[in-house]
């Protein structure tokens, strides 16, 4: 159920780097996700090096992706550090899924490896295999 004054349906885009073509690209990217997974809780695109939020969308005011940028970026960096150890050489990170009680969060690097995309969705609305497949298709 959508209650207009409780949800924030507008796509919030962040200033900083996401100007011009990148901003337009990310807006299309978010739109495509919403077409595939209209019930998603939150979606964001973050630059790994700077930790800068490039695009963010949330369906609930209480689920603020901005609060997650720092810990999520840390998760990605830690995994990338871990991949530099000798016994993991040659491995690339594909995606990272965190399973909670009734929702899951998926982090996937975009094709340029410079940014990552973060998705939060309720387990009752989709299943992990579908959500990961959509991420794979859209994030490349």
């Amino acid at each position, binding site marked *: 159920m959508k209650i207009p004054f409780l949800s924030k349906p507008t796509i919030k885009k962040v200033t900083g780097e996401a100007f011009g073509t990148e901003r337009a690209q990310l807006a299309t990217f978010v739109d495509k996700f919403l077409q595939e997974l209209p019930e998603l809780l939150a979606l964001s695109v973050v630059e790994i090096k700077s930790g800068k939020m490039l695009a963010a969308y949330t369906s609930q005011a209480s689920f603020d992706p901005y609060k997650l940028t720092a810990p999520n970026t840390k998760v990605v960096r*830690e995994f990338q*550090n871990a*991949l530099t150890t000798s016994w993991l050489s040659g491995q690339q990170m594909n*995606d990272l899924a965190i399973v909670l009680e009734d929702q899951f969060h998926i982090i996937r690097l975009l094709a340029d490896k410079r940014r990552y995309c973060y998705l939060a969705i309720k387990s009752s609305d989709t299943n992990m295999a579908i959500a990961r497949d959509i991420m794979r298709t859209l994030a490349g």
Partner: protein
Amino acid sequence: MSTTPNQTIQSILKELPTLVSVAVVETETGMPLAFHSNLSDFDAETAAAYNTEVVKAKLKAISALKLNQKIQDILLTLTDQLHLLKLSPDASKFIYLAVNAKDTNLAMARSILKNHAEVLN
């Protein structure tokens, strides 16, 4: 019934003899309590330390949003390996498991870890 970290490692090894590496790690200190690897250059201390940071960052994220939810597990897919982190019921320890994607699928690895994390003490 509860089991020690060493018993957990042994029984996971019995179910997944081809695993890459497995470790039981203390969340607070990030140190491995027990581990096994089929790789000669596997460094359990480093792997445990990195993975602990991941778990802590994720716990922080969940408390930042006041989601009031427990982490069931964390799954990482690499080029040809799967890495799983599964927390014990009180989140004081976690099991870290790395497998080859061609030997095991995500669902199998998850269900094996689930049984072991529940009795981990």
